């Protein structure tokens, strides 16, 4: 082949151009680190923030989880959100049903397991009537599952013994909202964060427990330098690091602090008299007690002047005054709280007072304002609070003690009149106490681990041992599964379909994307199969997630909830919808009670508290009250508990994720001064003893905690922190006081 020099150069040029312009350039793309066949919209499995995700599948497995850019979380997830892909494939997934035979759980068929479960329930009811059985559910079940369990037990079996772990985390908030506004659930939405100029965070470590919501708050702080943050927390948490003012309060004195702030707001005139006059009423105790006046409230607060409560709260009066001043002068104050307020014997009072500060200052109903309680679990709000799957409640805000509400549900469920019991059932802690006493003989426990999560847990483990326990869970073994007479393997998250709702009342659809392992089934299938065997198959006509959802929409219609417009098709297409959403054209409601925004608010003016008979929200005269457990020379310190970013609850799921196994969860934070007095060094074993029990943990001297206060994580799988926590209950919400226990801390000598 003969080429001239010119032709050779042409060929070189053409080759270079082809290489650059062809596959070498236009066609070139950077490789994906994890190849994905298809992406699907979903929601994170963990906390109540409800982060929207997109899930990548390959070869029938979940291989990648990312934040959804179209979602409220704008593409963000925390470490647990990222690890959604791991939880499906952790060790110890439950694969097949088991029945206890000769003291051991043995593998059986589904038919045999369900027959055994039904026989145990029938026997219990034969011996002790309908109230001898119970359902103990979870804020991690899908709405369809909680709704169906509620219907089966209250409408079918005739017992109101339906409760669950949400009682342990948000009952005080639910009772607070209901008693103040006449309807449960927060009034605002996450969009308010972009409008707030003051964030009042009390009893919430958002940076670790609701990290993506907190990042949105931090985005606001990054772009609005005038925005301020007040954090009220006995610990110097990562959240407190972002605070303009951190009130390191003595645990359990929140009501006194909030009353003192109300006193100061009234004293300085930083209140909204027109709002108080038009939309607020003052009462004591209950919502139907005789109305009082603003002057009565002023007189009541005389005992709560900042100087009078400063010592009790462990703060200076100047700090309290400054907090009140910042709240009062703020153009838009948004408050967040969670377990720190809820998990105490003054939980409802603290919730009511937090809401009262917003009502007194008119900081509600405008963008960037409102009292916003955050939920701890994926679906405690939607699945449990909204569907009324609590011992005192019925769906969509109804209660068992009201004849009209019962008749409503009997009609909607096609039941004979009088079928639903008028007596509230047993709430969480009394339920397990009743098991201990033999009054409740059989219980179905779904998607939760009460043997580890209940306060004073050792006491109630006796009840679990004694009762006929049917446990449905995705993991085996759990502490609770060890007491099971029948164990049923459950599908989880993307292995089944259902609806979740998060803190801002946003409902999301989680679609089934992969098959569950082994013989695991969805909890909805389990409930329907059990209902059939107990003779209530006709009651459970809706048996698919979509059919149950459509029934639930009909049940909500015309109530202050009203999900009628949230069709399955819309939930599939959209990244969630917030309620009220009464029509299929309605875009969802951000701010409740605001005429023009909330379709149920019909009056004109700033706000319409339509769920209250008189259209006015209630400010309660709430006493701090005495501590249920005082510090004594035997128990001179206060134990408080909480969570950390990387783990979740009893670590049933996160404790099995390989990446998280190196994260320490077995330590006790103790003030360095207290540690020095005890002669305890970092890493040494200490024993925490309360009047109920003991737990041994490694000491971690830390300035994060106040002197006299020790802090432990609730996650420890090795040690039972809840052996020492308090099972005293809030008298209104029946929520236990995890955040406050009198304890003695001692150094453990080697060899003991």
């Amino acid at each position: 082949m003969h080429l001239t020099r010119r032709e050779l150069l042409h060929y070189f040029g053409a080759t270079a151009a082809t290489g650059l312009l062809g596959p070498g350039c236009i066609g070139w793309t950077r490789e994906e680190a994890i190849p994905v066949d298809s992406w699907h919209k979903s929601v994170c499995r963990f906390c109540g923030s409800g982060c929207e995700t997109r899930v990548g599948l390959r070869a029938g497995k979940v291989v990648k989880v990312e934040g959804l850019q179209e979602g409220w979380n704008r593409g963000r997830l925390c470490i647990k959100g990222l690890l959604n892909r791991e939880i499906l494939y952790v060790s110890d997934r439950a694969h097949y049903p088991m029945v206890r035979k000769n003291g051991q759980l043995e593998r059986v068929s589904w038919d045999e397991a369900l027959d055994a479960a039904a026989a145990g329930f029938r026997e219990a009811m034969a011996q002790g009537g309908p109230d001898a059985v119970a359902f103990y559910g979870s804020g991690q079940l899908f709405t369809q599952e909680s709704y169906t369990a509620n219907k089966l037990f209250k409408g079918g079996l005739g017992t109101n013994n339906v409760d669950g772990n949400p009682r342990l985390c948000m009952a005080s908030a639910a009772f607070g909202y209901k008693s103040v506004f006449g309807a449960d659930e927060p009034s605002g939405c996450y969009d308010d964060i972009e409008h707030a100029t003051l964030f009042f965070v009390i009893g919430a470590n958002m940076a670790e427990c609701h990290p993506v919501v907190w990042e949105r708050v931090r985005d606001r702080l990054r772009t609005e330098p005038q925005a301020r943050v007040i954090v009220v927390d006995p610990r110097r948490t990562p959240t407190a690091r972002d605070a303009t003012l951190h009130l390191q309060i003595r645990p359990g004195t929140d009501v006194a602090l909030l009353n003192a702030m109300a006193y100061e707001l009234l004293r300085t005139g930083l209140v909204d008299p027109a709002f108080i006059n038009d939309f607020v009423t003052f009462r004591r105790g209950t919502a139907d007690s005789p109305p009082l006046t603003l002057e009565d409230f002023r007189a009541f607060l005389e005992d709560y002047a900042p100087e009078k409560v400063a010592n009790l709260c462990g703060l200076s009066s100047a700090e309290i005054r400054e907090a009140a001043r910042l709240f009062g002068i703020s153009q838009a104050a948004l408050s967040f709280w969670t377990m720190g307020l809820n998990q105490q014997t003054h939980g409802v009072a603290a919730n009511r007072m937090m809401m009262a500060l917003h009502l007194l200052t008119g900081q509600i109903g405008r963008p960037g304002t409102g009292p916003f309680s955050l939920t701890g679990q994926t679906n405690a709000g939607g699945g449990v609070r909204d569907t009324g799957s609590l011992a005192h409640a019925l769906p969509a805000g109804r209660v068992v003690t009201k004849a009209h509400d019962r008749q409503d549900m009997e009609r909607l469920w096609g039941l004979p009149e009088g079928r639903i019991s008028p007596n509230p059932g047993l709430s969480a802690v009394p339920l397990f106490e009743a098991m201990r006493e033999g009054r409740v003989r059989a219980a179905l426990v779904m998607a939760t681990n009460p043997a580890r999560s209940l306060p004073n847990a050792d006491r109630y483990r006796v009840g679990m041992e004694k009762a006929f326990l049917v446990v449905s869970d995705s993991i085996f073994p759990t502490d609770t599964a060890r007491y099971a007479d029948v164990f049923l393997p459950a599908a989880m998250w993307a292995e089944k379909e259902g609806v979740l709702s998060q803190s801002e009342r946003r409902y999301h659809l989680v679609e089934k994307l992969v098959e569950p392992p082994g013989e695991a089934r969805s909890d909805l299938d389990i409930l329907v199969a059990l209902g059939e065997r107990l003779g209530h198959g006709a009651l459970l006509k809706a048996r698919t997630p979509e059919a149950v959802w459509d029934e639930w929409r009909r049940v909500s219609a015309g109530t202050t909830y009203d999900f009628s417009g949230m069709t399955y098709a819309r939930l599939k297409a959209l990244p969630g919808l917030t309620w009220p959403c009464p029509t299929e054209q309605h875009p969802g409601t951000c701010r409740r009670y605001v005429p023009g925004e909330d379709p149920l608010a019909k009056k004109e003016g700033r706000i319409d508290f339509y769920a209250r008979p008189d259209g006015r929200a209630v400010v309660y005269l709430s006493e701090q009250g005495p501590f249920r457990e005082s510090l004594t020379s035997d128990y001179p310190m206060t134990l408080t508990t909480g969570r950390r970013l990387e783990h979740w609850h009893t670590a049933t799921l996160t404790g099995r994720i390989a990446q998280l196994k190196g994260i320490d969860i077995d330590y006790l934070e103790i003030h360095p001064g207290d540690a020095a007095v005890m002669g305890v060094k970092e890493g040494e074993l200490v024993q925490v003893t309360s009047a109920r029990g003991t737990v041994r943990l490694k000491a971690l001297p830390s300035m994060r905690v106040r002197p006299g206060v020790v802090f432990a994580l609730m996650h420890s799988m090795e040690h039972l922190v809840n052996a020492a926590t308090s099972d005293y209950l809030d008298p209104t919400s029946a929520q236990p006081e995890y955040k406050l226990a009198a304890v003695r801390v001692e150094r453990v000598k080697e060899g003991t």
Partner: protein
Amino acid sequence: MSAWSVWAMATPEPPHGATLGGALEVVALGCIGVAVLGLLLVEFVFKSRMARSTYRWTLLLGLFVLPGVALLGTTGHMFESMKTVEACQSCHVMNPFVGDMHDPRSATLAARHYRSGAIPDKQCYACHTGYGIFGTVEAKRDGLRHWLLYVTDTWKEPITYKGTYPNANCLACHATAPIFTRVDSHKALGTQLANDEMSCFTCHGLPHPARPTRASTRVTASQ
């Protein structure tokens, strides 16, 4: 007033002092000037007075060596000047991204890095180029591809980052910082972060506005 003063006034001062791109530009311009002037002088003034061999060497210098150096200089200048934010923004499809970076009210990672001054200049290039020679080659290849898509009007909306963003670009600055190393989540996910199986952006937020909130990058007739 001296000639240098006039020259200095006519030439805009570079924003951050001398740059490699600027130096290469001067070298290239100098070479071209010297070559043109030299060739003219040699051909029309000194040719008759020069030895034949000197004449040939001078021509070789003026026609090949100096233009060669000038070519290297201009190429280097182009390579360097293409690293600037202004170069990226010269295609208007980048306006939403650059505009957001300069927006004092934006909370995106790009805007936060810009505001903090953590990356004083060439911000696009700093985050979008892998480290080492292959990073530069990849960046040039990306740049050429973007340019081709732009001039042929064949890009797809919304613009998306292709493939997996390399965490190494973040870690190059952050990996040794105590604020990074003391975070337990980083330790727990060390392997996944190193292998790009999880993205820094997932927890720390998007670098640019989320796709749903971005304006279209394609200019319509009405614009």
